[in-house]
Structure formats: C-alpha cells, structure tokens
C-alpha cells in the first residue's frame, strides 16, 4: 500500500533545523507533490530518502519494511531513484551509454545491443528517448527524460524528481507530465518536489506542504485549490491580487530594456526582461532561485553578455561594459557568491583595494600606506571584525560580506546591484547589510536588490518585481504588496492573477 513511509524525520545542519519531525507517506502508484518555498526542507527530506544525507532522528520504511539507506547505490538497490536539478549525464556519450553506465553486465559493450535494451525500456515505460543520440545534442527536456529512463532502467519503483520543470519550456513540461501520468498508471510512485502551485495542481494526486522544516499537512488534489495550498505554504489567508505594473517616480538611473541572455549550458535564462530603477529607490527583485536572477545579476555586473537588448545607466549603454568600466561608472556590485567577489588567499586590505587599484598606485607601485588607511577606514566604518592583514578566507561569512559591501558602497555609487546580500549571514550581519542598503538609497542611489528572502524584499523595497522562469511577471508597489501575493507570483499561480 505504502511504497515509502518516513516518520519523524529530523535533520540539522549546524544551527539550522532543516527537517523537524516530518512525517511523509507515499502511496504506491501515486504522484505525490512535495510543495514549499525555498528553505522549506523539501530537498533535504528527499536527499535523506535517497541516501545522500543521514537523518538525525526518525525512521524510514520501504514497502512496510524498516530500512537504512546509506548511499544512492543503496537507495537504488531498494528501488528508489532520484533525478535532481543538475544532471548527471556524460555529454559526449550516447543516450544508451549513459543509461547503462555502471549497470551493464559483462566485459563487452555492444552499441546495438545496449541501444536495443534501452529502446525496449523506453517503450516499456513510455519514456521517449533516442538511444543512439549524443547527449550533448539533446535539449534539456530530452536530457531529463534520459535521466528518468536511467533511473527506471535500474528497476526502481519510486522516482523522486527535484524541481524538474525549473529548466523546461512549457511544451517540455507538458511532455513530462504526460510521461509521469503514464508511469503512474503503470504502477510507478512519483515524488515531485516543486514550488510552483499551478504545476502541482495539474500533475499530483496528493500534495504535502512543508514550511520552515515542518510538515504543514497533506491534502489530495481534488479536495484542494491553489488558494488552499498558498495558504498552507505561507500560513496566512490569501486573496487574489490585481496586477498592474508599477512605474517608478523620479529620475531613472538603470534601465534594462528587453534583455535576453543564455545561462550556463546554453539554456535561455533571461527572456525579454525590462525593468527600471530610479534614484532614491530600492527595487526588490523577488523570485525562487533558478528563475534567472543570477543571470540578470551577472549581466548587470559585466560578467555575462546579453544576447539581445540594452542596459542604460543614465544615458550610457552598459550592456557590454567590463567590470572595471562599471566600477568607474559608479556601479557598486555585490556578487551572489562571496567567494566569487573576494580572493580568499589575499589579505583584507588587498581585496578592498583591488577593484579600484589604480587609485592606490603611483608609478606602478602600490602605496601600501594608502591601502592600509583605506582598509582601516572601511573596517571601522563598516564594523568589520578583521585586521587589514588578515587572510580573507579566515573571515566569517558576515565579515566577508561586509568587506564586499564596503568596497561596493564606499565610493557613493549611483547604482547598487545587490545579489543575495544577506545569504548565509547571522542576524546581526543581516541587519547591518539591510540598514546600509537603506542608507544608500536615502543618499540618492538606485538599488536593485535581488533576494530569495521575501521578508527582506518586503521590508526594504519601494517597488517589487517578481521573476519567474526568466521573465518579469509583475511589478508591485511594496506598500501594498503582501507575502502571499508575492508567493503566488513567484510560484506562477496563474489562476489567481487578474490582469488589469
């Protein structure tokens, strides 16, 4: 009856309680969605089931039998397979080779015979693949099918899919759902991790909602609605929202016009993005990670060239400017990953000076006194707990972020691009960063705040834009916006939005 039962699962990472006594049951032959926002604990729970993590407490039963799952290999041998967001395919090999890798008996590898085997499996499970194609030529949707067939080939009967539609275009999503329905009818049990309400309502039989590491409840689709689910996800009553794109008042500083761009792996990450940020304003960019925010931040930081569109800073076209040029134009940039903005092996004062090194240089030599003074000044101004000569990698996350902040803000930039500025920081550091950004805005800067933290977006922004699947799906006035509304936009809940 129950393919999988997880009881009282608890998992801690340091101080973070990722899973708090979660109960989860999967009926055989159903598609069961695991719904929740970022950080709700969905992926953690499934990684425990797949043997990538060990639970701190609780038990797991597979087909009624208590089991210990020690590794993915173990999980597969017990019939549990997982397709995660980053694919584990070897691109120069064929589809068939990828599927049989590590699972082909004997010495010999006969392409025709493995392709036949794969074709048989493909027909049997109704998962359409071309066994002789090279993986590198496949679209994302096709690759995903290969991953799914790879798991099925190993005789699993529980398939976990982690945010499978994050990288798919709508047509591919339809194909995926068709495939999943068919598999479900054959008796396969599917766990479908998602943050997207509309999809969950389309494909699942039952839905379990997680919030802040706890299980909020399990409902069946027929007894529920997007509104109910949204309420369970955020914990409050939700109403429909009226969407009307807010414009900024005041002088525009940053104008992003019809920007499209490709992300890594050649997939489209930004589709025709247009936003404007004015002086004395914080525009918050909300969205679940993976919907294009990282790429937009990269474009605006000079690290990724857009394929189409323009970016204006004032009246200067900057879509193809280099990082050094952007700094000189008065753009302060806070990267999403601290470690990509700081060289860990260099000292604090060196990292503080590098972005504008020419100002500390006389005739090619570095004026270390100036560098030291600059560092000391910034350390005190930004309350960084470090000495100028410390190796940067030794600093805590919060202090590293303050370094970046100091570098980005100390020169009174006209435009601040802040990507996930408080990610991974403790309460004190988070407060500090947020206050600093507010200060910059008060001093006349235009601030683009990209964040996965809705509370942050709501408390800091004047206007809020929401990104979903590479597009801007709404621009709201922050005064009237609520977490629920944002949550709906971020999850692509279509039926609840009235276009004005």
């Amino acid at each position, binding site marked *: 009856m129950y393919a999988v039962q997880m009881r009282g699962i608890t998992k801690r990472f340091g101080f973070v309680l990722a899973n708090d006594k979660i109960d989860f049951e999967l009926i055989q032959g159903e598609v069961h969605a695991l719904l929740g926002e970022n950080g709700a604990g969905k992926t953690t729970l499934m990684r425990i089931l797949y043997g990538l993590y060990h639970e701190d407490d609780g038990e797991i039963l597979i087909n009624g039998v208590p089991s210990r799952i020690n590794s993915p290999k173990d999980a597969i041998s017990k019939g549990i397979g997982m397709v995660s967001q980053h694919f584990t395919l070897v691109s120069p090999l064929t589809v068939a080779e990828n599927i049989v890798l590590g699972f082909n008996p004997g010495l010999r590898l006969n392409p025709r015979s493995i392709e036949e085997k794969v074709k048989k499996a493909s027909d049997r499970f109704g998962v359409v693949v071309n066994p002789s194609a090279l993986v590198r030529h496949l679209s994302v949707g096709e690759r995903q099918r290969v991953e799914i067939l790879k798991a099925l080939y190993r005789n699993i009967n529980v398939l976990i899919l982690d945010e499978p539609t994050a990288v798919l275009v709508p047509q591919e999503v339809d194909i995926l759902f068709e495939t999943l329905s068919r598999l479900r009818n054959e008796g396969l049990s599917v766990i479908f991790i998602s943050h997207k309400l509309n999809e969950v309502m389309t494909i699942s039989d039952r839905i379990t909602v997680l919030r802040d590491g706890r299980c909020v409840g399990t409902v069946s689709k027929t007894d529920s609605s997007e509104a109910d689910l949204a309420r369970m996800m955020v914990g409050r009553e939700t109403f429909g929202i009226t969407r009307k794109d807010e414009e900024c008042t005041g002088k525009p500083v940053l104008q992003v016009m019809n920007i499209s761009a490709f992300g890594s792996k050649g997939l489209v990450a930004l589709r025709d993005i247009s936003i404007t940020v004015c002086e004395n304003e914080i525009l918050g960019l909300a969205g679940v990670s993976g919907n294009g925010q990282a790429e937009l931040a990269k474009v605006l930081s000079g690290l990724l060239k857009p394929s189409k569109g323009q970016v204006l800073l004032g009246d200067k076209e900057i879509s193809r400017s280099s990082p050094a040029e952007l700094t000189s134009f008065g753009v302060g940039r806070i990267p999403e990953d601290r470690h990509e903005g700081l060289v860990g092996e260099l000292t604090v004062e*060196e990292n503080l000076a590098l972005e504008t090194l020419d100002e500390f240089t006389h005739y*090619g030599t570095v004026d270390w006194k100036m560098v030291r003074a600059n560092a000391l000044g910034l350390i005190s101004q930004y309350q960084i707990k470090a000495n100028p000569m410390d190796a940067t990698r030794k600093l805590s996350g919060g202090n590293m972020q303050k370094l970046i902040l100091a570098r980005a803000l100390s020169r009174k930039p006209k435009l601040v691009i802040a990507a996930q500025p408080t990610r991974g920081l403790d309460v004190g550091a988070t407060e500090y960063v947020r206050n600093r950004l507010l200060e910059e805005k008060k001093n006349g800067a235009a601030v683009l705040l990209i964040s996965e933290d809705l509370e942050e977006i709501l408390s800091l922004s004047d206007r809020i834009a929401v990104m979903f699947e590479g597009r801007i799906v709404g621009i709201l006035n922050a005064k009237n916006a609520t977490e629920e509304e944002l949550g709906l936009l971020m999850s692509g809940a279509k039926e609840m939005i009235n276009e004005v």
Partner: protein
Amino acid sequence: MKFKFRIERTPSPLWMIALLPVFAVVITFIISMLILQIAKANPFEAFYYILISPLSSRTSALEVLVKATPLILTSSAVTLAFASGYWNIGAEGQFFAGAITAAFLGTQVGGLPSYLAIPTMFVGAFIAGMIWAFIPAWLKVKMNVDEVVTTLLMNYVILFFLSFLLNGPWRDPVSGWPQSPTIADSAVLPKLLERSRLHLGFIVAILAIIFVWFILSRTSLGLRMRAVGRGKDAARFMGVNIGQTLFLTALISGGIAGLAGVTEVAGIHFHITDAISDGFGYTGIIGATLGNLNPFGAGLAAIFLGLIATGAQSVSRSMNLPVYLGNVVQALLLLVTLSIILMRNYSIKRVT
C-alpha cells in the same frame, strides 16, 4: 601503554608545518638510499659527499653558490609565473635565448668598457628571454592554447637554433669545435672573491629575487598577478584584465630566465656550447615548487639544489657514482615535497 593516533582533517600546528621541509629532505634521502643500493654504494658515504663535503671547504662552499646562481634566476622566474597561475615550463628555452644573446653581444662589445658591456649583455638577454616567451604567451591569451606544451616545445626549437649557430656561423674556425667565439674581456663578469668562481652573476641573481619579491608584493601588477593566480573568477569580478596580466607575467618571467643565460656564458664559460645547461630551466621549476611560490623560499631552495648539484659532482669524483645522482635527488625532492605539502591540512591527534 599504547598510544593511538588519529589523523584529522584540521590544519597542522605551526611547528609541524615548519618541520615539513625537513621531513621532505629526510624522506628524499631514504628513497635515494634504495637507489644507491642498486649502485652498490654506501648511502651514508654518498650523503656525506652530496650534502656535507661541499660545505666543508671555502672553495667548494663558494662553488655551491656558483652552481646556484642560474638556479636562483630560473627559480625566481618560475615563481613569478606560477604566482599568476601561468605554467611557464619554458625557462630552459628562455635561458638559452639569453645565453645566445650574451654570447653574441659579448663578442661585439669589445670596444666598450666593462660597466657598459656587462649591462648591455644583461639587458639584451632579458629582452631575448621576453621574446622567446612571447609566442606561447600570445597563443595562451589570444587563442587559449595551453602554455605548458607550447613553452616546452619552444625549448627544443631554440636548441636547434643554437645547434645551427654552433655548427655554422659560430663554429670555431681554428679547432672546428661547435663552440662560439670567446667573448671580449670587457664582457667577462668580474669575480667576487679570489680563488673561487663566484662572479657578478650571483649578485644579479640575488637582485632578481628581490625584484620578483618587489613585483609580487609591492606593485599593482603583482597584486593583480596574485589575484589571478589565486582566484581568477574573483579577479575578473573585480575588474582585473586577466589576459593582460598573464601576458606580462609570461614576458617578465621569460626575461628573468634569460638573465640566467648571461651568468653562465659571461661568468663561467665565456662562450656558448650546447652543453652549458644542466637543465637549469627545469630545475627552476623544482626550486619554485620547493619555495612554495615565495621568492625568498625559492632562492633558498635554489641554493639547496645548487648544493645537491655540487655534491653530485663530488660524489661522482670520489665514489665513481654517476653525476646524474644529483638530478635524481632533485626530482625526488620535488615529488616528495609535493606529497608532503598536503600534510599541512592534516594533524595527528592522540586518541585517549
């Protein structure tokens, strides 16, 4: 009572890190012992001749510095390159470029006084080294061609060029030997101390170390080099021009290696043959690695390598062992050090 130890993945205490070079040397010599067994030689006697006997007399101790001179130069050249993450394996070829230039200029500056002739050779050799480093550097920056192979291949090309010169225009007309004409007296590097071969080149070598140190720690270019070498993505984010930085690194590194050519041609041999290098460019890589990318460390390592080279010669004389023992020990030292450096990340804790 038994002591049980456990190896933990935490950084070693400082005293352990300081001892690591000692461990490296000890382990190297233990392995060398095995090799010496094949040669049926007494290992301890061999160690005496390699490590101790060169230091036992003034002459031979100074000879150590003489042998170390080109190594100090190539080691600092390679240190500079590696600091930016540019794998300059072409120091050998750049050495020869400098040597050829020195041999040529040395014969042309007869009319000049020493204080002009000698700097001319050094400047010429530096430029020659830069030129020889240019092609691989350009290919790397403009076409992303891996510099390891290109710099290596350039080493062989210049040897052929040298061979052409020695068998052709530079062949000694009298003896017919493939050796270039002797350089003018004013081009000879003056000796620093009597009764030794220690020459001005040694001072130049020390200056080179200081120069590399100065670039890396005091100039903006050096800071950019270190940023590129330790965190290319962050460096790019901060606006560093990666290509330009690598290009300059490659050229300066080539120039310094070229200087080593002058020290041998104008300080020791006074002409050039194809045998004047004992793999100085490659040994420079050993020195740079042993010195852990610190120019002073590289200098010390180079002197140690010079000690081994001198010792190998005395071993060869006294015990009739092949002088190649020195090359073997140097290579072993490199490999052992590579392995041992990892131990920095581990500590041995006693389990109670």
